[in-house]
């Protein structure tokens, strides 16, 4: 793990955290008029996976995609403009929070139908396979998405053809307000991957550094043609399922559960690692906070001032032309 730049990981996670905190803060202004599923608490998984990939590798995600999009290198202004419905949004405002894309950094898509991008991700990898390109696709999903049959259809096909796919299931224990135990039998999630003849790995989804350490070699084996793999990253969503608030007063999850996960916040974990290595200096903290805050403030400033798409764009994207 000597080549892992932990300070860099911290900076990447912090960028996502501060961006989402700003979204949460400003959401009540009612100018970001689309549903937002924040990833606060899950940044370690997103950054860990993205930093295990090469830039040419592809990624797809779900309704909860901000962290994946940003971790993969997606434009922050593209994201914030998209939330504001502006023409400079990464999907020109047509998509909203749940439909992000940035082909410049090979973030291929997030969509809002649970399970919808899973076979699409496998198809991207099938494309790489057919073109004999050494490109890996990361399919980022939640813990509930594997309940959709289409996950299994896609996993079977990926395994059959040894396609270059990394399935990443961020197990945050909930599907909206429903606990895993009310949706799936009690067995390791990864047994499903085993059932499809796939390699699998379960990791602490909040420990970004060890994710990178474990997943980089896995990605390289996938790239070499050793077949797809399934990663379970155990993590926790800190805010409500959808929206800017905390909704733990609803009582669907226990106080102990919440506090133990907050203690294991991915930023805390990396902070502790940097403390151990004496890299957690006041200068570093001040510098990275300032840098990230500046970028976030600038992005919001840009987005709030940016123009909306004009009426001509309504219905402009029905068919692509030759």
């Amino acid at each position, binding site marked *: 793990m000597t080549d892992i730049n932990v300070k860099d990981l911290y900076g990447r996670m912090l960028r996502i955290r501060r961006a989402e905190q700003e979204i949460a803060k400003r959401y009540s202004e*009612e100018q970001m*008029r*689309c*549903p*937002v599923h924040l990833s606060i608490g899950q940044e370690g998984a997103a950054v860990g996976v993205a930093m295990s990939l090469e830039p040419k590798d592809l990624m797809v995600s779900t309704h909860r995609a901000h962290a994946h999009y940003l971790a993969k290198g997606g434009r922050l202004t593209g994201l914030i403009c998209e939330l504001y*419905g*502006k023409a400079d*949004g990464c*999907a020109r*405002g*047509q*998509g*909203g*929070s*749940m*439909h992000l894309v940035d082909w410049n950094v090979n973030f291929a898509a997030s*969509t*809002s*139908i*649970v*399970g*919808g991008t899973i076979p699409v991700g496998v198809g991207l990898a099938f494309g790489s396979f057919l073109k004999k390109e050494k490109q890996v696709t990361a399919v980022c999903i939640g813990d*509930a*998405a594997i*309940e*959709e*049959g*289409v996950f299994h259809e896609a996993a079977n096909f990926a395994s059959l053809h040894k396609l270059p796919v990394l399935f990443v299931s961020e197990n945050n224990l909930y*599907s*909206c*307000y*429903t606990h895993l135990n*009310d*949706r*799936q039998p009690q067995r390791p999630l990864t047994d499903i991957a085993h059932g499809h003849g796939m390699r699998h790995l379960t990791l602490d989804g909040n420990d970004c550094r060890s994710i990178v350490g474990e997943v980089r070699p896995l990605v390289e084996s996938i790239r070499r043609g050793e077949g797809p793999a399934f990663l379970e990253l155990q993590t926790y969503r800190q805010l409500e399922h*959808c*929206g800017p608030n905390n*909704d733990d007063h*609803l*009582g*669907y999850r226990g106080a102990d559960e919440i506090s133990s996960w907050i203690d294991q916040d991915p930023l805390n974990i990396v902070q502790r690692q940097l403390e151990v290595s004496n890299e957690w200096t006041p200068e570093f903290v001040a510098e990275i906070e300032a840098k990230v805050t500046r970028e976030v403030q600038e992005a919001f400033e840009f987005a709030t001032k940016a123009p*909306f*798409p004009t*009426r001509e*764009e*309504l*219905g402009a*994207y*029905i068919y692509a032309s030759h």
Partner: protein
Amino acid sequence: MRVIKFVEAIREATDQLLAADKSVYMIGEGVPDPKSIFGTTANLKEKYPDQVFDMPIAENGLTGVAIGSALNGMKPIMVHQRMDFTLYAMDQIVNNAAKWYSMFGGQKSVPLVVRMIIGRGWGQGNQHSQNLEMLYSHIPGLKVVSPSSAYAAKGLLADAVNDPNPVIFIEHRWLHNTTSDVPEELYTVPIGKARTALKGNDITIVCWSYANLEVMKACEFLTNQGLSPEVIDMQTLRPMDLPAVKESVRKTGRLLVVDDAWKFGSLAGEIIASIAEDDSIQLKSNPRRLTYPDFPSPSTHALAKYYYNGPHEIVKMVGEVMKKELKLDEVMHYQAARTHDVPDQNFKGPF
């Protein structure tokens, strides 16, 4: 009478149906959770622990499960928070539920109710705002209802649960907080019957679901100008009460169908075709329809604003059918002053 919300009418009907018949059960993603499907299932799990269920995200499989249980004596009510999700379940709905009675020669039918919610506004976008009523209304063996009021919702849900056939029950999200008189006791609004929402002589406006509210609002601006529109609220989309439409059109000689769905291949088109085919009907002008444009709704409110039809567009189209210059400024101002991507000022998203 007592005035309650649409969500409360659904909740109350479900409560009473669960109490009346132990073979009725309710299932869906989030049914017992704190959000309780926009309030429509609130407290039901506590009251009927053995009849109320959450489910994994597996729309097709669970529809099949509901079908099987129905064949084994149960009466499931399934709910999907968005109609868009039900595309996963088309195989079980169309190949199994709709066909069971016919493909086994009339031996067993599937008494299943599937509630589906149409989204709108607050940036829902392409995959959370589709009205797929047509995909189900085209399928023999299904019944499809689409109530426009709390009263109709309660009565149609009761009739649907008692129907031995699969019934698709379509709710527009923007109806959920609307209110109407609703009797406390359980009653039925019969599937297959349209309702005359307004009596008139000049033009027949056919609509259903949320569009009925917009049509009724438009009619205020029409009657102000001395017009007498007749409004038929279909309530059921299949089997459709075409006789009611025809009777009205025979009287008015003019037809406008307002359908919150894509135009090409819409139910609005089906209604117009049925009238056009009928030799016994003489129209005074060409029939018309007002629909969504033929593309999905964008997320950004800056564009979604122009996507949906409201009273302004309805009044304008009535003018075209009537071949009359109608005053539009009042209705235009009314509409401009309304919120356009939320049903009311209290709605703060997200879904």
